[in-house]
């Protein structure tokens, strides 16, 4: 029996009175990797943000269930503590807050107060940073402050590894990465996929060469218009979105 992590039914979402997501259905089970592809402005980030609970987006109809429970009643931090993780398309700068402090506090918040001794935390941190080929000096810098695009994405994935999610929402985590970084980050993602459901938003097949998707969905104008296997990504890369337009 597959274990359902996320179930979205007939979801409609508006921001400032404008409908962005227009009847979307999606089921993600534990261990599955779902890729979502689609043009700029199709509503991909909106979907990820809405699942995480961003207050700017209003669910006008439809439901989202996470681990069998209706999501509306949960605040953002509760979703995080229940194992939901969003890797942001545009991670924000938190001036003056050191990465090391931030990671320690976040792990404590999500995994619980006494899940890790300071020593265990340091050991785990060291191990995961070396997996992501991140220098220790990052720990003393301020969160995302002056980080290059690729460095920001590495920090997102480091957080994902430390927070051990049950649902990972990865919004264009591959954008702006060089070839080596792509491989490193893909390794990071692959290390959580057996225990988690995974939603990977991307524009490029190249990430999907490293992170094997079980399903590829095409999103156009706030709806999933086509779902296929990993071969669909290649087809999109080759033919673009136009041939699907009529289906929308």
């Amino acid at each position, binding site marked *: 029996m597959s274990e359902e992590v996320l179930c979205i039914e007939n979801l409609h979402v508006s921001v400032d009175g404008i409908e962005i997501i227009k009847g979307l259905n999606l089921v993600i089970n534990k261990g599955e990797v779902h890729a979502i592809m689609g043009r700029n402005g199709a509503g991909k980030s909106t979907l990820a943000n809405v699942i995480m609970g961003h207050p700017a987006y209003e669910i006008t109809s439809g439901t989202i269930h996470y681990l069998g429970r209706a999501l509306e009643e949960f605040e953002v931090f509760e979703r*995080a503590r229940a194992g939901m993780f969003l890797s*942001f398309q545009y991670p924000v700068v*938190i001036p003056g*807050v*050191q990465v090391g402090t931030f990671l320690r506090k976040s792990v404590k*918040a999500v995994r619980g107060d006494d899940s890790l001794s300071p020593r265990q935390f340091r050991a785990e941190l060291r191990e995961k940073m070396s997996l992501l080929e991140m220098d220790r000096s990052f720990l003393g810098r*301020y969160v995302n402050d002056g980080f290059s695009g690729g460095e920001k994405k590495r920090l997102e994935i480091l957080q994902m590894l430390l927070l051990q999610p049950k649902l990972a929402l990865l919004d264009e985590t591959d954008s702006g990465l060089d070839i080596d970084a792509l491989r490193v980050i893909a390794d990071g993602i692959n290390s959580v996929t057996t225990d988690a459901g995974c939603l990977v938003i991307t524009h490029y097949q190249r990430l999907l060469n490293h992170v094997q998707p079980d399903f590829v969905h095409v999103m156009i104008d706030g709806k999933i218009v086509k779902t296929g296997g990993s071969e669909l990504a290649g087809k999109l890369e080759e033919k673009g979105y136009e041939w699907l337009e009529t289906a929308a």
Partner: protein
Amino acid sequence: MAEENAQNAIVDYQFGFHDPETATIRFDSGLSEKVVRDISELKGEPEWMTEIRIKAFHRFEQMPMPKWGSDILEQIDFDSIIYFLRSSEKTEKNWDDVPKDIRNTFERLGIPEAEQKWLGGVTAQYESEAVYHSIREDLEAQGVIFLDMDSGLKQYPEIVKKYFCSVVPYSDNKFAALNTAVWSGGSFLYIPKGVHVEMPVQAYFRINAKNMGQFERTLIIADEGAKINYVEGCTAPTYSTDSLHSAVVELIALEGSTIRYSTIQNWSANVYNLVTKRGVAHANSTIEWVDGNIGSKLTMKYPAILLRGEGAHAEVISVAYAGKGQHQDTGAKVHHLAPNTTSNILSKSISKHGGRSSYRGLLQVTPKADQCRSKIVCDALILDPESRSDTYPTMEIGNSTADIEHEASVSKVSGDQLFYLMSRGHTETEAMGLIVNGFFEPFTRELPMEYAVELNRLLELEMEGSIG
């Protein structure tokens, strides 16, 4: 909702407890020439000090209230203030000899513990006078003098006479005049030539009685090439009536010396905190004011540095936190009076729940002061629409070779920052606490570690109930 939370925040002020009032000498409230004379006589002071006090008192009576600052000033009722209160007969060298209630208070404030771990010396003032004082023997052996100001005057009258009022004349402002008239307690610190004091020395000021006026006077002299790191903290019980804290601090940094003076002001919300702090920096010396204002009803404080000698350097790093009913009117004044002098001013303020913070700054470069450099950065963070932040910078640049930079910013906490932090498992309050601590980080990193941790904890407490 916001109202209620703010009330809680005030009730939550963790240093608001008070001891039973036990006084060995307690003046009636109100101020007169007789009160001034009585204080001086009680302390057995030399004639010249009595005279300065009397002159300062008359000056205080004549001077109008400052026109700038805050309307709240007009609410001060000088007649209801108690100008002298002695709560212990002696300044003790051993905590065990300090009266029990008072000792308990300082233990709750963590002073004896901090002293053992990381301080070179401690003065603990309770109401008008020091109840405890000590300095590490190795510092004493190097000739460092660290005393409460009353003992300083008794034991080193010549040094005190030479420098008292030399940096802050009593006519400087109404509250400097008041302090000079009725001063009691404070620190006297002298560091001999070339001596570097690595461990910070600390003064802690505690008001306990209702309607108390605390008027400590501090004088620090760093002789040539000397180095000192002085820290002070202060708290008071929460009462419904007001108390007044009006201190004067004078620093003298002789050639090549360094004085760092750090303050964490955390008075309860019924204390007026009107303080004059000023230092003179001689050639190639450095004066640093590290000034944190978290508490009080109204604070007016603008640490100043006179760069009198060539190559002298001034550093003022300050943070202010203005919550409900609070006005933090703070800033910095730097006077470049000699060539090749440099200054850095960094001011950060947070306003919340209708609180008000103002930056009031003066930068002066005199015609003689060639090739000076100064950088001023003022950042304000406003947490809700009811709160307020203003900047009043004044520049008097009399020399065209001066290199001056000035940046100011006002920002709000962004929804995206909160969402990002909350998506990492932090509640809105915790997220706000992280952002606020981060905003103050350039200040906190300058503090001794123990203080930084304490300050962050304080701010996190302040953030509780900040979401309305």
